[in-house]
């Protein structure tokens, strides 16, 4: 499967995080909320005009700004 970023995933789609393209600070921030390579997540929703993206990781729901979400690279599960 090709790698895409979180913003390119469809709502309802599952995928596994393969990489976070960002500096140490951003990686640490995402990691502290449980978003890190190897983790499965489900995209829940997008907003109009590049608004935040929401995902489910484990039981937690998390909102991520569009720019940050673009740095999260995932392998989507085949639909």
């Amino acid at each position, binding site marked *: 499967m090709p790698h895409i970023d979180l913003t390119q995933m469809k*709502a309802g789609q599952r995928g596994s995080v393969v990489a976070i393209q960002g500096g140490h600070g951003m990686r*640490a*921030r*995402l*990691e*502290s*909320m*449980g978003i*890190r390579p190897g983790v499965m997540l489900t995209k*829940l*929703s*997008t*907003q*109009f*005009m*590049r*608004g*935040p993206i*929401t995902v489910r*990781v*484990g*039981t*937690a*729901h*998390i*909102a*991520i*700004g*569009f*720019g*940050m979400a673009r740095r999260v690279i995932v392998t989507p599960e085949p639909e």
Partner: protein
Amino acid sequence: MKKIGKHNINTIAKQVLLIGNPNVGKSVIFSRLTGVGVIASNYPGTTVEFSKGFMGSGTNKMRVIDVPGSYSLNPISPAETVAVEMLERSIKEKNSIIINVVDATNLERNLNLTLQLLKKDIPMIVALNLWDEAKHIGISIDVKKLEQILGVPVVPTVAITGEGIKELVKRLHEAEKGIYQYDDKERWHEIGNIINEVQIIKHKHHTIGERLGDLTIHPWTGVPLALIILLVTFYIIRFIGEGLISALFEPFFENLWAPVMMGLSRMLGSTGIIHDLLIGKLIDGGIDFGESFGILTTGLFVPFAAVLPYIIAFYLVLSFLEDSGYLPRLAILLDKTMHVIGLHGLAIVPMFLACGCNVPGIMATRILETKRERFIAATLMSISIPCMAQTAMIFGLLGKYGPQGLFPVFITLALVWLITGNLMRVFIGGESPEIFTEIPPYRLPYFGALLKKVWMRIHWFFLEAVPFVLVGVFIVNILHTTGVVSFVGRIAAPLITRLLGLPLEAVGALLIGFLRKDLAVGMLAPLGLSLKQLVVASVVLTMYFPCVATFVVILRELGIVDMAKAAIIMVTSAFLIGSLLNLIL
């Protein structure tokens, strides 16, 4: 070994720190342990400052500290910095233990902080909170095994009902330094191993809360729902507020209190300094609670009959919104809008709080990451968000004109919020960080806790606001009898009369506005202003300067330089907008 540990802790532990991720229930546990009421809500970042309380008695008396939530020991917001500093200080002083409050529904993420804490040189016990919710969604955790692995006591709790709290207290003395050894680079791997050993997720079915969560967050359904919720919120506040006033508070003052005051007035001879101070001016031979301006008449009527009903109404509704978990969802829907004013969606939470009172609103800006955001947010709320006390008075004064009276005021303030915010975004250098937040599950607010929270806020109003209003009325009388109002009025005449089109006496309201805005709006009542003048005065009173309580908090949170900058923005924009309204209305 264990015995010695116990002994050591018993003799040295003088302090308990409640540490954990945001929104896991630390504040509720704190209230349970100490009996001290603190505000707890269903969104991350309710606690931005630490609260202190005491538990136990005699030699067992321990200080308990409710620390702001943090996802890790690398702080990002000022609220998290408070948490980490607090922890480091306690480790140095060697007199504390930690209660690490963990969300049982989200064990994996929470263990990240737990494992970091275990490496610190401080005894610890884990409270596995939200235990009922975890069971409800099919998560079971082997507590004994988790205890073995971590090497510290683990106690399941349901803080909101008090379940497990006794056990937690009983086992506090067993708190120990962690024995769990791991390589920091492998932390997540270790956590994965622990999870595999202790946690079983049986089934994960879509709950009603989750379905509702989906609807309120999808743009097509979420935006209309948000509009409906905000409108309903507004109407409920007005309904309860007005209902309480017309059914309870006004009749009380008019039918019961007025005769008493008239009796007192006659006793005092219907005139004289003491009479005017206590009763005020008689209007057509009687007492007018809005206009007489005595300490016992207007001084009591304003806080109790005009403002309190709206305070009750507002905090009932706000507390419900807070505890349900809706606010973070609103933050996501409004994220793009908030970026227009240089903030991200989460800033809507402080803005909401500011509608009640600017002081907690400005405190809550600590959840924002950068100094620039906090400056914009604090300045904006003190310029364009009237507190509920002031709003209630504006409703009281302009409500009789209906939308014609209220719309110009509130639409102007909304535009000021948007335009001033946008200008600040453009002219103040720096980036706006993006939203990054956990969205808590919807929870049905726990009625008892909700009422307690409303009561705490009303109690605060009694303690902080009512004395200020009484002192304010006293000062109003002094200002008038000593001629200060007419003196300042003459100096400020060009500003007040020419630019704003207000009578000279309105300057008295601007002077008192620094003390209490609600009272200042009340001072407009006896002046016999036209609708246009009332609108101009209400807007200028909101914008021109914060009240003293807000001023002190901004000064503390932003520092003197930024406070001065904010003040310049406030004063200039207030007179600009005021004269503009005077021209076009």
